[in-house]
């Protein structure tokens, strides 16, 4: 298991931050956003009573299906969208109350990256990264001094005079990241930044974001529909569905014990989260005399590597059939799920669950197969 790589995601800042609400960089309170009715559509509530916090120095992910309201939500933070109700407090200021002129100043301290990179095709890599500085009125000499180290940081120093059309998707997003960092923001908003990238490039961009978070202490708020992104780098996650946050907490807690149906559906693509099809299709909610019980065992923390099943067989004398499972990492912590089945009545099931509970493992009865 490769703990070292992912342990960076659980930055110390996120632990200290949860101690006090004052350390939250973003605090969204009771926010609703209603798009008024137009000629061809009824009024739409894109967001409905959202409460969300993002601790300083943390990586917070908002995950949801398309149309769940995540784009609207992230745009509230830099005032590109105004809430109908509620407060959007960024670093102590309610941005929902600010005039457009004041917002322009605030936006210079909030970087943003986009799914389709949104680079200017007419500008070179260097000039794209320089754009926010030009907008802020920084002198040409200071721009040079700021942009060059950023190109080094994202590994594109040799591409400074190239145009975006000459770059790969991953390189374009690196330019986007360098550009977002050029005004030395305290917050980075990521709008599906890896959704247009292949898995390998996604990983390298995520590694870069995690490094920026760690080395620059930058708070990152990201929206995504990809569980892999959340699992890879987010300290905290909020699941949004139909304009409401249906589940939120530390990434590890939400992933290891998903409660809401939407979360479970989103997680179903992640290895070990779903029962193999051949079992799922035969699963029945009621037991019969000759059926076997299907159990999901969730291994978290240090137990993930213990030989639990052989102990179970030895102590209770039960033949356990392994149906599937996976060992994975979430936010740098080992996490395993195992689907097993074993014959026996209700009391047998209870004794197995009790045994596993004593080992510190949680279990879930999924049904019965015959």
């Amino acid at each position, binding site marked *: 298991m490769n703990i070292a790589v992912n342990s960076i995601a659980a930055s110390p800042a996120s632990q200290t931050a949860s101690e006090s609400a004052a350390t939250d960089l973003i605090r969204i309170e009771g926010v609703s956003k209603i798009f008024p009715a137009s000629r061809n559509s009824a009024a739409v509530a894109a967001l409905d009573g959202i409460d969300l916090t993002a601790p300083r120095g943390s990586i917070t992910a908002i995950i949801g299906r398309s149309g769940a309201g995540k784009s609207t939500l992230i745009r509230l933070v*830099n005032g*590109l969208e105004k809430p109908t109700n509620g407060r959007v407090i960024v670093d102590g200021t309610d941005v929902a109350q600010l005039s457009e002129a004041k*917002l*322009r*100043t*605030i*936006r*210079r301290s*909030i970087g*943003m990256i*986009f799914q*389709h990179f*949104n680079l*200017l*095709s*007419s*500008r070179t890599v260097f000039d794209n990264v320089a*754009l*926010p500085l*030009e*907008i*802020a009125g920084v002198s040409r000499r200071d721009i040079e001094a700021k942009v060059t180290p950023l190109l080094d940081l994202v590994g594109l120093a040799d591409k400074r005079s190239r*145009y*975006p*059309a*000459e770059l790969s998707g991953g390189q374009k997003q690196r330019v986007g990241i360098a550009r977002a960092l050029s*005004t030395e923001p305290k917050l980075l*908003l990521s709008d599906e930044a890896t959704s247009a990238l292949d898995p390998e490039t996604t990983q390298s961009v995520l590694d870069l974001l995690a490094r920026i978070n760690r080395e620059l202490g930058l708070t990152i708020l990201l929206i995504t529909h990809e569980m892999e992104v959340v699992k890879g780098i987010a300290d905290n996650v909020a699941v949004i569905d139909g304009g409401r946050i249906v589940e939120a907490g530390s990434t590890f807690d939400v992933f290891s014990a998903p409660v809401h149906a939407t979360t479970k559906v989103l997680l179903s693509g992640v290895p070990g989260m779903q029962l193999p099809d051949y079992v799922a299709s035969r699963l029945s909610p009621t037991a019969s005399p000759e059926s076997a019980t299907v159990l999901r065992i969730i291994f978290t923390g240090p137990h993930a590597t213990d030989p639990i099943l052989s102990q179970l067989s030895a102590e209770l004398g039960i033949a356990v059939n392994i149906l599937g499972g996976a060992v994975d990492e979430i936010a740098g912590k080992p996490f395993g799920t195992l689907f097993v089945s074993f014959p026996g009545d209700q009391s047998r099931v209870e004794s197995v669950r009790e045994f596993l509970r004593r080992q510190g493992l949680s279990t879930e009865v999924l049904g019965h197969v015959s």
Partner: protein
Amino acid sequence: MSPEMIWLIIRATGQTLHMVAVATVIGSLIGIPLGVFLATSGKGELFAAPITNKVLGAVVNATRSTPFIILVVAIIPFTRLVAGTSIGTNAAIVPLTIATIPFVARLIESAIREVDPGLIETARSMGASPLQIVWKVLMAEARPGITLALTLTIVSLIGYSAMVGAVGGGGLGDLGIRYGYQRFMPDVMLAVVIVLIVLVQAIQSSGDWLARRFDKRVRSR
């Protein structure tokens, strides 16, 4: 062809270029900002002013739907006010410019609308003011389209300028009609047409070349 005839053709070419150049410059100075405004003042856009947008759009359409030769005679009082006379090359520049403004405005509007709206949002997220967005994003990104729009404007103006003979504007078109047609001099007609073809070719090719140079959207290697 007599040397006098050749001299006439050279002089007419000079008049055409003079009229087209002045109309292009003044027409663009007014037409480009107008086009940018038309492209950015719709509902929910950068300089949202939907009513002004609709009114200006209607004025632009009205001017564009007036046949040029009618525009030339219809605005003679205005021409006299501006140029001090209603005949001659300088007087001809006035209707040419008036016709150029809405023409340029519509072409610039569509060139600006070609720019990805995501870039406007991106610039807003950086804290750019609307004017900075126009200047650093819209105009910069639309540069190839604007170049082609202005090329098309110049070529069309050469065509329009043939009609200003009606008010004594001179130029190649006027020469072709008066000598080539009315005086039965087919060689003059042919020479005028050849000069026009060469002019238009040269302008279109330079415009295309410049637009390609500005266009960084395609891989250059």
